[in-house]
C-alpha cells in the first residue's frame, strides 16, 4: 500500500501539485465537505503518494483554494497536493480522475514551481448563470438598472441570521444574452473575489431589488443553474488570467 510511513515521523513534501477540477451536472450538488471526503478517498484509490502532516492525528496535505457553493457547477476549482514522492503530473491527473465519480473531473495537474499561494492568484471569477422563468428583455432592463447603481444591498441568510451584503460593488461586468422566448435567459457575469463573497444568487436578488425582476420557475431564482467558468487574477483590462499559467511557464526544479 502507498500509505506506509517511515517510523518516527512523516515523510517530507518533495513535490507540490496544483490541480484544476470541475463539478458538473448532477454532482454540482456536492457540498465542499462532501468533495473533501471524496478527494481523500480518491487519493487512496489512486495510490497517490500523499504526504501527511506531523502530529497525533496526521492529515493528508490537501489545500483547497476555492469552494463553489453547493448546487453551483464549476469548470475552475483549484486545490494543491503535497506529495512525498514526485510523480508525473499528467499520470496523476489520469489516476485521480479515474478514482472519482464522473462529474467530479480532474482537468489539469501542474507541478508548482513558483512561490506564492494559489489562493492569492484568485481575485475574480467569470460565471454563466441560466436564469429560468424570465424573458431576455426583462433581464436586460434589470441588468441596466443594476449596473447604474453604486451599491445594491441584498439580504442573505447565513448561519448567524440575516445580514445585508452589497451585491453591486463586486460585479465587474454583467451581460445578458439568449434568445427572446426561450425558457431561460443567460447572464455572463464577472465578479471580484471579496469577503463575504458575492454569489450569483446574490446578484439575482439584486436584480429583483432594483428592478423587481421575478422568475416564474418552480423554485424561482433558487433553481437557476450557475457555472463558474473561469477563476484567476483580474487584470486592469478586465481579463482573468489562469492561476496555473505561471507554473506552467516555469519548469519545475524537481518535477
Amino acid at each position, binding site marked *: 500500500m502507498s500509505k506506509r510511513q517511515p517510523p518516527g515521523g512523516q515523510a517530507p513534501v518533495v513535490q507540490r501539485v496544483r490541480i484544476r477540477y470541475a463539478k458538473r451536472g448532477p454532482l454540482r*450538488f456536492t457540498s465542499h465537505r462532501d468533495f473533501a471526503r471524496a478527494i481523500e478517498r480518491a487519493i487512496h484509490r489512486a495510490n497517490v503518494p500523499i504526504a501527511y502532516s506531523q502530529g497525533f492525528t496526521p492529515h493528508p496535505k490537501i489545500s483547497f483554494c476555492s469552494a463553489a457553493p453547493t448546487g453551483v457547477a464549476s469548470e475552475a476549482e483549484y486545490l494543491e497536493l503535497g506529495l512525498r514522492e514526485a510523480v508525473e503530473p499528467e499520470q496523476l491527473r489520469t489516476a485521480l480522475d479515474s478514482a472519482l465519480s464522473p462529474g467530479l473531473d480532474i482537468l489539469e495537474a501542474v507541478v508548482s514551481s513558483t512561490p506564492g499561494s494559489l489562493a492569492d492568484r484568485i481575485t475574480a471569477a467569470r460565471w454563466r448563470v441560466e436564469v429560468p422563468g424570465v424573458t431576455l428583455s426583462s433581464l436586460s432592463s434589470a441588468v441596466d438598472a443594476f449596473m447604474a447603481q453604486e451599491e445594491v444591498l441584498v439580504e442573505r441568510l447565513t448561519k448567524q441570521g440575516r445580514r445585508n451584503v452589497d451585491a453591486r460593488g463586486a460585479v465587474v461586468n454583467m451581460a445578458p444574452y439568449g434568445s427572446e422566448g426561450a425558457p431561460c435567459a443567460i447572464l455572463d457575469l464577472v465578479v471580484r473575489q471579496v469577503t463575504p463573497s458575492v454569489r450569483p444568487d446574490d446578484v439575482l436578488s439584486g436584480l429583483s431589488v432594483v428592478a423587481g425582476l421575478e422568475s416564474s420557475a418552480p423554485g424561482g431564482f433558487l433553481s437557476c443553474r450557475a457555472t463558474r467558468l473561469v477563476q484567476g487574477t483580474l487584470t486592469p483590462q478586465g481579463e482573468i488570467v489562469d492561476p496555473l499559467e505561471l507554473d506552467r511557464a516555469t519548469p519545475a526544479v524537481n518535477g
Partner: protein
Amino acid sequence: MRGESLFPQLEQLLPQVSKPIQYVGGELGVTVKPWDSVPVHWALMYPDAYEVGLPNQGVQILYEVLNERADALAERTYAVWPDLEKLMRTYQVPQFTVDSHRSVGHFDLFGVSFSTELGYTNLLNALDLAFIPLLSKDRTDEHPIVIAGGHAAFNPEPIADFIDAAVLGDGEEAVLEITDIVAAWKAEGSPGGRDELLLRLAKTESVYVPRFYDVDYLPDGRIQRVIPNRADVPFRVHKRTTMDLDAWPYPKKPLVPLAETVHERFAVEIFRGCTRGCRFCQAGMITRPVRERSISTVGQMVKEGLEFSGFHEVGLLSLSSADHSEIGDMCKGLADQYAGTNVSLSLPSTRVDAFNIDLAQELSRNGRRSGLTFAPEGGSERIRRVINKMVSEEDLIRTVVTAYTNGWRQVKLYFMCGLPTETDEDVLQIARLAQEVIKNGRAATGSRDVRCTVSIGGFVPKPHTPFQWAPMEHPEVIDNRLKQLKQAINSDRSLGKSIGMRYHDGEPSLIEGLLARGDRRVGAVIREVWEQGGRFDGWSEHFSYQRWIDACAAVGIDVWWYTTRERKQEEVLPWDHLDSGLDKDWLWQDWQDALTEFEQDDCRWTPCFDCGVCPSMDTSIQIGPTGHKLLPLTPVNGLRVTT
C-alpha cells in the same frame, strides 16, 4: 416514456432542499444500464433516509448480484425527507431512483428491505409518491410487483395488504430466482397478467404471496387459521438460506457515497447466523445455522474492497464477530497487513470476555483506544438466565477491569429493560454492577479516570423467537424502572460521577411490538398513521406515540391486546405459516426453559439441540478453522488508474 430520467424536473427542486447530494446518485460502484437493454427492472429500497440506507449491506449485495446479470438492471431508492416530499407532491415528481432518476412505478419489481417494522409508514409514503396504488388488490399489470424482504418479512402480516409478496431469509439467490421467473414470464408475453406471475412466484414455496392466503378469526379475536385460498400454492412458505459464503463474496464493489452517511467504512460480513441462543434475539434465531466466510476470502475481500473504495475503515461484521472460528488469526493477520497505514479495523463485538479485549487490542495497535462495548443485556444473573446470556457478575467485572487496565478509559455496557419476568430489582442491579465496575476499575488502575456508560434498550418480543408468546411490559412501568435506576446510579455521588446513562423511553418499543407481532388487521393502523402524517418512525424527532395510539382508536385496534397480552401454546400465531425452520415445539420448550431459568448451550460447541433448522432447511453448520493464515501484502508502488 418508461424508464425516462426525471432529473430535469428534480434538479429544479433540489436547490430548495437540505443535503441535495443524497438524491443525485453518482456514487462509486453504481451501475447504470439503458432501460431497454434488459427485460427485468428492479427498484430496491431501504425505507429510511439515504444516510442510513446507503450503507445497508443487504441492499448493496442485491444491487450488485442483480446488476451482474445481463438480463436485469437494479437501481436504488430511499425515503425522501419531508422538505423534498412536499415539493414532489406540489410539482408531481414521482418517487425516483437515485441511479438514473427513473420513476419507481415503471419498474417490474419494487423490493423493499425492512430491518425494522418502524419503516412501514415509509413504505406507504414511497408507494404513494410513486403513484403505485397502496393496496395490492388495486394494482394492475402496469405496476411493479412490490416485494418485502429483510428481517421484518418473517412476519409481513401487518403490511400484507400493501405488498404483493415477501421473501424470507437470504436474498441473493432469491432475487436471482425471481428474476428468472419474471424474465421467462415476460418472454412468453406475460400470460395471465399479474396474477399468473404471482402464482409462479408462490409455487417456488419460498415467495409468500399474502393474497393467496385467507385468515379466519375466532370470536375472541385470535386467529383460527391461515389457509391457502387456491389449491396450487403451498401451505407453508420457507425461508432461503445461502450456503457457502465463500462463493458469494459480495459486495465486491461497495457503493461509496458522496454524501455523509452513518457508516463510512467497508464492511465485510465474516459469518451469518448465530446459535448463542439469546432468547430475545430474532436475528440469531432466523439466520441459523452459522455459516462462516473463511479467513482467506475475508482477507481477499478486505484487500479488494479497500482498493476499490478508498475507505480507510474496515468493519468485520456479524451477529457476534468474536465467535468466528478463526477470528484470532484474522484480526492479527489484518492488523499485520495494514500496520503502518492509515487503515483502521473495527470488530463490532460485545462479548463479555478477556478474549474480546485481546482482539480489540490487536485491532487498535496504533494506539487508538476509542471505546469498548460489552453487552450483558440483563442486570441480574437471574434475568440473564431467563434470556440465556451466560455471563456471571464476576466475569463481567473482571472483563471490564481488564479493559481499564489495558488502557481503555471508557466502556459502554448494554442492557435491556422490559424483559419477560423482569422486576424492578433486576433493573436496579444494573446500577450496582456499574458501581462495582467503577470501584474495581479505580482500584486496579489507581486512577479516577475510568468511566462507564450504561445504555438501555427496550425489549420487543419478536416472531420466531422463544419470547414470541411473552407479554410486553406497559411503557409506564418501564419508564418508572428507568427512573428508579437513574436514582440508584446517582445514589453514590462519587461513583455516579463516572457513570453515564443512556436510554429511550418505553413508548416507541410498544409500537414496534405492535407491528412486530401484529396480524393483517394492524395494516389499518399503519395506513391511518401514514395518512395523519406519520413518516420516519424510527427517528425520535419524527415518531409520535400519540399518533399511533390515536390511529389504533380510530380503526378499532386494541394496542394492549397485541402487546401486553401473553399468548398461550395453542394460539395460532400470525406467522405460523411462514417457516423459519425453527420447530414451534422447540421454541415453546425454550420459552418454558426461560421461565424456569434453564440455560441452553451453543450447538457449535455442544451437540445439536434440535432447534429444527438444519433438517427442515437441509442445511448444516459451516465453520472452520481452515488453518489458513493471511500472508503479508506486497506494497504496490505507483499510481493506480481505475478502469
